[in-house]
């Protein structure tokens, strides 16, 4: 359909884009805004590579319609470096060997960020549950769980 104007807060800055509201949020981020950090794996909500934070909640951006971004507050991986929690999580992923090919990493980091925002001192089981919707074909899940646990400990200090 014809483009409409969408206004939202993305990574703490206001944006207005004119786009087709029938697109997926994932495509607005990658195509309209050129933010390529959010990845597309399965396109049907099963891999978590496209995870972003929408109004405080981790969601798969392949299953959100662009029109639903209207007035929303959105955080993507690109917004992680100017945020203490985001920076610590990223560092811990690198230090714990939780990144190999890196394709799944932005999604995992967004899930981890949403978790630590809500629950700064999660147990390993809570960490596993929070990232259970993210798939990694390279590292196995132990280094990823380690990375998030380490980040929570550093942030708790």
């Amino acid at each position, binding site marked *: 359909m014809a483009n409409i104007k969408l206004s939202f807060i993305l990574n703490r800055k206001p944006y207005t884009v004119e786009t087709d509201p029938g697109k997926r949020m994932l495509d607005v981020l990658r195509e309209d805004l050129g933010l390529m950090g959010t990845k597309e794996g399965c396109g*049907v909500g099963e891999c978590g590579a496209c995870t972003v934070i929408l109004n405080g909640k981790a969601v798969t951006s392949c*299953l959100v319609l662009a029109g639903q971004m209207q007035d929303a507050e959105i955080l993507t991986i690109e917004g992680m470096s100017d945020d203490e929690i985001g920076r610590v999580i990223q560092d811990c992923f690198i230090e714990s060997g939780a990144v190999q090919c890196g394709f799944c990493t932005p999604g995992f980091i967004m899930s981890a960020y949403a978790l630590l925002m809500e629950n700064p001192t999660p147990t390993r089981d809570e960490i596993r549950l929070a990232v259970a919707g*993210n798939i990694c074909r390279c590292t196995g899940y132990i280094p990823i769980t380690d990375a998030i646990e380490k980040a929570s400990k550093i942030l708790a200090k």
Partner: protein
Amino acid sequence: MKIRNFIQVKTVEAFHEAVKAANGSIAILAGGTDVLVNGREDDVYKDCTVIDIFPIEELHGVRETENMLLIGACTTHEAISHDPLVKQYAPILAEASGAVGSLQTRNRATIGGNLANASPAADTMSALAVLHAELVIERDGEARVEPMTAIFTKPYKTNLAPNDLITTIRVPKLSPNVRYDYIKVGRRKVLSISRMTVATLLEMDDEGVVTRFDMTVGATFPRPMLFPDISAMLVGKRPTEQDILDVAKALSDKIPEIAGIRKSTVYKQPVCRNISERSLRKLCADILK
């Protein structure tokens, strides 16, 4: 996906107005976790005005009356699974919603969408069936109430008109001494669209005599079902091991009876029988001793 028009509404009234203004097909969009998956293939929504109801504040959250929980249709599974009222008065539903997909899915996916999509595998259906839940449905400003199980006609089909909006799921409150069990058998722990769920509510008096018993299997029949004959097998009795074996057999025998003999029956019938036995034994543990 291809659509004809898109409109976001913030009140139920605005929804009815948007329907009238749409002239042509409409599609309701809530969390979108079914709509966006359906919309990938073919151009199912290309002639539709998509009406996004997720921003309707009054459809989010859980309220209570003296005897009922009133769950807004746009309440997400994640919100339901943690809601204090649901945990207190309908804990079996908190478990069922908590068993849906992954956190990312539960953060968007709504209970209204779970029902309206009418997938026989929808996880909340068996729990809502044993709870005797009802739906408040609004069309053009007029509300009606129907038993939850009454809207389904066949897999992925309901008798809802396109301008029918489920606004509320009404759940009679359970008394604290109702025992419950919800089991989901899936492929993996998360993200598995259910292969089978078994939902059970059991209430007994001080002597261990059953005063209420509702048990059903989900993701197995073309639509959610309740069985008065199964309930009657335990009500008025103090359950024995033999009763449990009989109920589990009778429940699993419904599968070929209703769904017909299919490839999956070979797998589902014994699985149903086993988990029903396990579930009932757990619920009656103190009585069987």
